[in-house]
């Protein structure tokens, strides 16, 4: 990194723990508001359980709509953590340091939001969801069907959620010890218990460093498998032409990275705006993630282009009808145009400018724009895909989201935002030890007449 502000370890603690030890004034009203939005969603969910899925706007043949769109969207956002944390950790990218934990925590909360969206609401009887996965009926000998994509899906998502949560917990241990040393009374006892008696011996630091690399290497293959398997929920079905595509797995993965990395950039901006962490999150960090986004967005657009080429190349009538529906028919045409503009044509040209990449406001606007587009992308894959009229169907209903679906969708966003804020109040959202390690290894070197910062690594 070319720009940094030198802080000693005490200053790092004071800067990054001020909102854990104290409480910012805006925190309680913000969490209260998000909590109310979330509770409205919980109320809608209760109504759904009581009345059944008929309260949704779904009409045959549209059996999947907002719930599955939300599921795929939040699984996509969850890819933020591993993309930023694991890949940048493995490549020893210096700019990862202030960002990794926020990305990992975003992963955990967005995965729980995905689970809320699909198994909890989509199944209609969520209390029986787990019975898909585990053998349970010893009396009648009825077992889950492992050939169903809906058995693969929970196995992948639960593995990813378990791995991501443990990743966060392990990396938190040294920072919990810092809070233990800064608090008193019951809080000190709780943090002391949570940090497992961390002392900071060379052995513990060595294991912490190895753990970061080893867990990154282990979570990466899971990260690839999760969105591949989510894409197979669609792609292994032969009845819906728009979904039955071999490119779906890589297309979904790169789409997830696009929306996930954008969400991390949004969170980074909010970290500076809300917590005033501008001493550790410098314009250089935004510049770096902006450059990464240009590459990711371009690869995603290429995959999107290929998906269309594969679909249209055969000139089969069902595919042509589906694509016509997606692009030229109402109400999907404006949604399709909005998707293209917000996911690619608005943000990517702007990211080419250094001033935009280094501007908090523009990074916020462009990354929010990407996620509006990426939500629409999933909606446009799911709903027009199944609404297309097929010769063997006799119910040709349309789809309009009901207020219940909109409330549940809003609740998932409130849940993730509230979760991040509550986490930031209880635990440090920026890894203290990672920042301190960066400060220890930081140095300046003189090249000719210029003094430039350098980072020393093992």
């Amino acid at each position, binding site marked *: 990194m070319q720009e940094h502000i030198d802080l000693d370890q005490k200053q790092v603690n004071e800067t990054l723990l001020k909102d854990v030890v104290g409480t910012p004034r805006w925190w309680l009203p913000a969490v209260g508001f998000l909590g109310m939005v979330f509770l409205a969603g919980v109320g809608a969910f209760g109504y759904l359980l009581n009345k059944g899925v008929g309260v949704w706007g779904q009409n045959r043949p549209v059996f999947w709509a907002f719930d599955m769109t939300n599921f795929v969207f939040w699984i996509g956002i969850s890819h933020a953590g591993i993309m930023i944390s694991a890949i940048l950790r493995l490549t020893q990218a210096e700019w990862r340091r202030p960002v990794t934990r926020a990305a990992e925590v975003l992963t955990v909360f967005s995965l729980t939001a995905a689970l809320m969206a699909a198994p909890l609401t989509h199944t209609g009887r969520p209390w029986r969801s787990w019975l898909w996965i585990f053998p349970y009926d010893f009396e009648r000998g009825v077992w889950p069907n492992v050939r169903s994509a809906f058995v*693969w899906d929970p196995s992948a998502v639960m593995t990813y959620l378990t*791995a991501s949560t443990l990743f966060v917990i392990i990396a938190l241990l040294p920072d919990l010890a810092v809070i233990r040393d800064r608090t008193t009374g019951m809080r000190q006892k709780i943090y002391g218990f949570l940090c497992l008696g*961390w002392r*900071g011996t060379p052995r513990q630091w060595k294991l912490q460093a190895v753990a970061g690399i080893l867990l990154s290497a282990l979570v990466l293959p899971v990260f690839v498998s999760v969105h591949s398997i989510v894409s197979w929920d669609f792609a292994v079905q032969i009845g819906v032409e728009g979904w039955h595509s071999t490119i779906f797995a890589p297309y979904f993965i790169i789409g997830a990275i696009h929306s996930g990395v954008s969400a991390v950039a949004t969170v980074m901006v909010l970290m500076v705006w809300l917590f005033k962490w501008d001493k550790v999150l410098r314009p250089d960090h935004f510049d770096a993630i902006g450059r990464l986004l240009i590459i990711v967005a371009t690869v995603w657009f290429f995959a999107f282009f290929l998906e269309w080429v594969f679909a249209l190349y055969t000139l089969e009538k069902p595919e042509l009808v589906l694509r016509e529906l997606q692009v030229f028919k109402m109400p999907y045409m404006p949604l399709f145009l909005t998707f293209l503009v917000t996911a690619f044509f608005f943000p990517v040209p702007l990211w080419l400018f250094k001033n935009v990449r280094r501007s908090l406001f523009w990074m916020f606007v462009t990354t929010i724009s990407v996620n509006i587009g990426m939500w629409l992308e999933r909606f446009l894959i799911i709903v027009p895909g199944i609404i297309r009229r097929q010769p063997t169907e006799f119910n040709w209903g349309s789809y309009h989201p009901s207020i219940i679906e909109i409330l549940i969708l809003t609740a998932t966003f409130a849940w993730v935002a509230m979760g991040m804020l509550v986490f930031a109040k209880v635990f440090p959202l920026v890894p203290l030890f990672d920042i301190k390690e960066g400060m220890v*290894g930081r140095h300046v070197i003189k090249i000719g007449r210029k003094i430039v910062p350098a980072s*020393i690594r093992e």
Partner: protein
Amino acid sequence: MMPKMQFKRSVIGLFQPGSEDTVADSMDALKAGGYTEHEYELLTGTPYPEGTFGEAEPKHSLFRYPLIGAACGFIIGLILTSGTQLAYPLITGGKPVLSIPPMAIIMYEGTMLGAILFTVLGIIIESRLPRLFMGAYDTRITEGWIGVTVTTTEDRIGKAEEILRKSGAREVKRGWEKS
């Protein structure tokens, strides 16, 4: 006859932030004073490059854990998928009862989950956590101060204190007793 229980005591020498060289000298002095590597320990609030203080490289066997976990996860995945299909066969004309592609997916996830769970377990065990007994410790360590603790028998603790003071520790204090 029962052997007499040997009580141990802890002492910590605190060094100011930025005094890495002094700490390295104090560790050398402890070594020269006859203290073994099992008796003294370094405490820091941040990871330093290995060998900064002349300490020995910590040995660990963390890399075994994911392999054991992966094997366990693979076996559980195999039993779960083949067992359910054999116990409740869904016979489709001309196709084997055991369908390999979906089995491979679930076995893969099981393998990875086993590897990750065992790795986390390994990190905790190899880090010697949880540590219920903190011994000599100071909260300034997480503010950048560097601590050198010596845990030894009652008769050798005084000499350790003296070495730490002489080698530049700004403060030396006793910790809890350890048996």
